[in-house]
């Protein structure tokens, strides 16, 4: 047989001590030959039994578990560095945890730059000490520091307000912080189908975005009344002028339009006076009187960054350097909806994440 006989004294002692089962076999009136066959049968049964539950459990769970295991086995060689500008900031933490969760078994090192005065030097030391295949930068501090080093590996970034600055940078791929104009306008139309004209104020920094929005608005049956503001002095006049012509106002992220808190408050006061609803991109404006806010969903951004990172690690370079976030988070001000007597599509409520108040 394949088993090597035990020859040493200790082995013999063990055998004699463990041979207690022999009397039991003898009481069953089994010959040694019969006992051997019985053991073989038991062994066969146990082997069969061992395989079945594992297979069933695997079949039930294979789709959730095996993907990670499969990824881990094939992708462990690639190393990813995650630089978090400040782990104590919730939106950065959410991006980090959803990114790491979606990367599925990769070798990931996370660094918190929160208390670092000289992050550039620290990051440079890390890059010199270890070989990374990709960097994921969360927040402006992380991305800015990496940008100064300009490593020769792909950089993925998110949660950077000034993402437009990096649009043309080679090897830099980002997720912007706001939903695309197409998505925002589509949501507006879905929630409030009676809105026909939407007014928007913008400065030169958003000229391209407004041009894209104009195209989409037409497909949605919305007339976009866009007014470019060239100076702060004319801002409120432009607002008053628009309010007479539109069903709703669309407040976009624009540093020249939202130059101060006072300006924003005036903006909302004027709109409220005319009972014109304001649709916006950030929930902070809901308390100021906006009817709806459409923000990017933070966990989805992390997952999207992970998908992008995996593509880059597989040398599958995307056509566009910047992606808009695909997930949305919607807050509805039900008080304002009632106050302005707006017709709300009831089916759209299935998509609301938060109702204010």
């Amino acid at each position: 047989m394949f088993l090597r006989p035990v020859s040493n004294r200790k082995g013999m002692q063990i055998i004699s001590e463990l041979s207690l089962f022999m009397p039991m076999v003898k009481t069953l009136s089994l010959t040694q030959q019969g006992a051997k066959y019985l053991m073989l049968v038991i062994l066969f049964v146990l082997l069969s039994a061992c395989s079945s539950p594992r297979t069933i459990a695997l079949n039930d769970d294979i789709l959730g578990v095996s993907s990670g295991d499969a990824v881990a086995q094939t992708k462990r060689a690639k190393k990813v560095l995650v630089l978090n500008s400040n782990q104590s900031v919730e939106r950065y933490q959410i991006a980090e945890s959803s990114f790491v969760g979606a990367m599925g078994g990769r070798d990931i090192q996370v660094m918190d730059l929160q208390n670092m005065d000289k992050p550039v030097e620290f990051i440079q030391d890390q890059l010199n000490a270890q070989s990374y295949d990709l960097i994921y930068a969360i927040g402006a501090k992380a991305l800015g520091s990496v940008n100064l080093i300009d490593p020769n590996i792909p950089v993925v970034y998110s949660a950077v307000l000034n993402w437009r600055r990096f649009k043309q940078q080679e090897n830099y791929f980002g997720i912007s912080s706001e939903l695309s104009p197409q998505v925002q306008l589509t949501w507006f139309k879905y929630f409030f189908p009676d809105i026909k004209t939407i007014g928007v104020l913008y400065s030169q920094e958003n000229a391209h975005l407004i041009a894209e929005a104009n195209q989409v608005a037409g497909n949605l049956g919305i007339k976009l009344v866009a007014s470019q503001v060239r100076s702060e002095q004319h801002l409120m006049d432009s607002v008053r002028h628009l309010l007479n012509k539109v069903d709703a106002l669309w407040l976009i992220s624009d540093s020249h339009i939202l130059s101060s808190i006072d300006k924003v408050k005036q903006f909302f006061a004027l709109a409220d006076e005319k009972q014109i609803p304001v649709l916006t991109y950030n929930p902070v404006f809901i308390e100021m009187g906006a009817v709806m806010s459409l923000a990017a969903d933070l966990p989805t951004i992390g997952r999207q960054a992970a998908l992008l990172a995996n593509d880059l690690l597989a040398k599958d370079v995307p056509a566009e350097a910047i992606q808009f976030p695909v997930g949305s988070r919607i807050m509805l001000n039900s008080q304002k909806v009632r106050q302005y007597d707006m017709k709300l599509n009831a089916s759209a409520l299935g998509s609301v994440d938060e109702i204010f108040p």
Partner: protein
Amino acid sequence: MHHKRSKTDSRERRVLLRLFMLCCFMFFMMAQGFAETVEPSVSESAVDSTVSEPIVSAPDNDPLKIYFFNPEINASRNLVLKNTWDTFLREQGKFTFQPVDRQEDFKQLLQNDQGAAFIMAEWLFKKLEHKSRKAFSLALQGIKDGQDTYKRILVGNSKLLDLDRARIACSGDRTRNFKILADMFPELSAHQIAQLKLLQVPKDIDALMALGYGLADLALSSEVGLSNMAMLNENRFRALNVIKESKPLGQSILVFKAMEPAKQVAVVHSLLNMPETALGRQAINLIGLDNWKILDTRLSSMISQEKDGISGSGESASKKQIQAISDDKGSDDKGSDDKGGRN
């Protein structure tokens, strides 16, 4: 006379001993395997044992709990669901709405909580073993646009399919989505399904917009979602192709566990009232429905009797019990029936 064992006998003994040790080892591994890999589920005997031996039963003065779990609805919305539903239910009686974040927690509640109502995805209920399902009584099924079923669809820009590279936007539970895709593509192996690039998004409409606006290659969505998008932006969304469809899936259902018939009637009555008030419509719309239909004919006749006022004394026994439950609201304020008249 001492019997001298032959060499053959000794060899036989050693072989038998080793076989015995191997059997013990295999048995041990099997026992470990059962403990690690077999997940206790509602279908197991733990549930059956609790059917006849209630572990948790709420005192009568506690509000009646309506638990909710649907993995196709983003759990981050649970707070808005709870707030809206509690506001509506407070007007109806002593009820409280409790959305549950995780499937494991919901399964524990199904096992342990007595005298409660559960709103859940129908497919989740069907996953329970037949024996365990007997502990529950089916009461209502959700309706959306007149339909008690819906289909998940895989949508793309063209009929050509490159699943190896495609990014599939989808909402809901990741494991559930893999399962739906596995059912849609039975020709693919489990490994191939697990390799699909799923991009989880919070909402059905997010998935469609990701596809429609070039941020994804495919979207796993619903027929209703696609038709809504097609109405909004015909140019962009009518051109999309439905590549695969799931079999019809039932809308969410309401089941009771070990609840007195009178309380069941009170709950069903309240839920059937939802489309009648603005707040009720808001609450039911938040879970993706717009109405309910009664599945339990017994409940249906009790409610009909209550409406028609059938009985010799002018009030049915069930109506008296319902009245008693409604009166039991105590100092709870009744909100106005119609909040602002919108819709």
